[in-house]
């Protein structure tokens, strides 16, 4: 298998894994910010 073929197999999965981690962290922060804003609005 050529390097290009290896990249074609592994590359997308590596990118998707990074996307998943980014989503998980970003969504957690967004959720906390949303909750905090809601609590401040109702304080």
């Amino acid at each position, binding site marked *: 298998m050529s390097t290009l*073929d290896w990249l*074609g197999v592994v590359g997308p*999965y590596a990118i*998707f894994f990074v996307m998943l981690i980014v989503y998980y962290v970003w969504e957690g922060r967004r959720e906390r910010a949303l909750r905090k804003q*809601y609590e401040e609005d*109702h304080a």
Partner: protein
Amino acid sequence: MHSGALAPLQGSGGIAGAAGIWVLATFALYLVVLVGIGLWASRFMDSVGDYVIGGREIGPVVTGFSERASEMSGWLTLGVPADAYGTGIMAFLNGLGMIPADLFAWAGIAKRLRKYTEIVRSVTLPTFFETRLGDDTGRVKAVSALVLMLFEGGYVGAQIVAAGTLLQVLTGIQPWIGIIVGGIIVIGYTFLGGYFAVAWSDYFQGAIILIAFIILPVLAFTEMGLPFEAVAAAAGDSATSITAGMAGWAAVFGVISYAAIGLGVPGNPHIMVRFMGIDKVRNVRLAAMVAQLFMFVAYVGAALVGLYAIAMFGDGALADPDNAMPRLTLDLLPSVVAGIVLAAALAAMMSSADSQLLVATSAVVEDVYHGFLDRDASQEELVRYSRYVTFGLGAASVAFAFVAKDTPIYTLVLDYAWGGLGAAIGPTVIATLWWKRVTAAGSVASMIVGTATMVLWTQLSTVLGWVGMMPPESAAFWYGLVTVYGLFPAFIVSVSTLVTVSLLTEPPENVDEHFDVFDKPLSAIIDAEDSPGTAEYVTDGGVDESRRLSSANRNSPSSGDVDARADGGDATDTSPKALTEADNIRAHVAASEYWADDD
């Protein structure tokens, strides 16, 4: 199984040989255990509650598994390994569209759909569309229900073919016997699985298949190392090329076809109902993580299984590529363990068919019959009609399975189920949650055009071949365009139609009020001091939120039966609903008393 009275019914003999009896015995035992647990759970509802309460921590795990298990059908268990057996490493690209599309669905659809359908208490997509688009004419509901019925019926047919194929290859029975037996089991299972512990069985079966897709490649690896050299030796260099040896436009359209599979995610209602049924909005994030990791393992494992099948049995050695996964399982695992894995595969197909048959049934009974023909139908009537419709649709699916039994499961699912739902329903799901300007007319036009394009594109090469206008392979662009996966053009045409027609028509009023729901915690909507409790646009006329919550709590000890309406229905709800897949999942959630501190 290879002699005596069954002999006339048998074909050339099953691949399982002596292990076949183990497989069938394990499968029979498996079904008995599943039914037994379902009956036991339905009698002692505390146990169901306990199970989901235990799920205070694993709730999102069950949801994530369940979302994926609803697809752990014949397509992934038999189809993807068969695809890898036929095309080589390019089959890894099956995840190219699916994985990011599923992540986008969790990120962009799950929370919005979950919050909105909680507020308006929709349990089916057609009802959600009708409410969100403010459609008084019923057109959106009727057209979307018909589309669901058509393509979910195709999905059930594909699962029956898959189950029949597995029975056939294991035991050597004739294909028609396999389909009939598969059909009977699927329809029967729907009655049981439709009412008992659906999420649980999905979780359990999904876990077994997932473990199998880890163990099989690991066992094969310990025997022969990485498969790529052996694959190249057996099937040529094209099998270890990421474009399967194609270049230019052929490679571009080949990659597009794999990537376009992901466009089907938003339109498949058996995935969307998982989003609607999750216990807490904030658990969506964890459920997404679980579902995504599940996909990584499943897609890589399924492709590796197909590649190891090439390496171990040789290219073209299997008369039917769909046999790749069962053959490898029987070769690498002891008979009893192979029996459990293949029984779980068979059960997973039926579990998927169960979900899809229920979605199709709810489209007919809840959205068409209850929505149009008899709005005052009682719960008992609706449940009774649901059974009739399940039988009718199940029989139609068996007939479809007969017609389509020679089509590979991989293309059967993608062309006649997944793609149709993706093209017809997907654009409306996305637009209703993200675009204020979408209209009912735009949605209806998009569904009709998406369905027509998907059906026609699938038949395009056949029709062009008949009239002698099929482009030759040397005309790479045109040949690639005609043979590209139909969901790619159908989705584009469907979205274009939705946007164009919506811009030419008037959007519903109070859209801003609907969209307010999306950007706040759910509790901000339903617990606000100035809130009337339930939005005016609820589908069943609404009951006071505090009564709804107390009702859910009060019902919790017995919430597994038909009357346990986790969507809040109680004595004041004059519009009872047919039991749907979402009802089932929500009933489990209600049993846990999650609603009491829902956010």
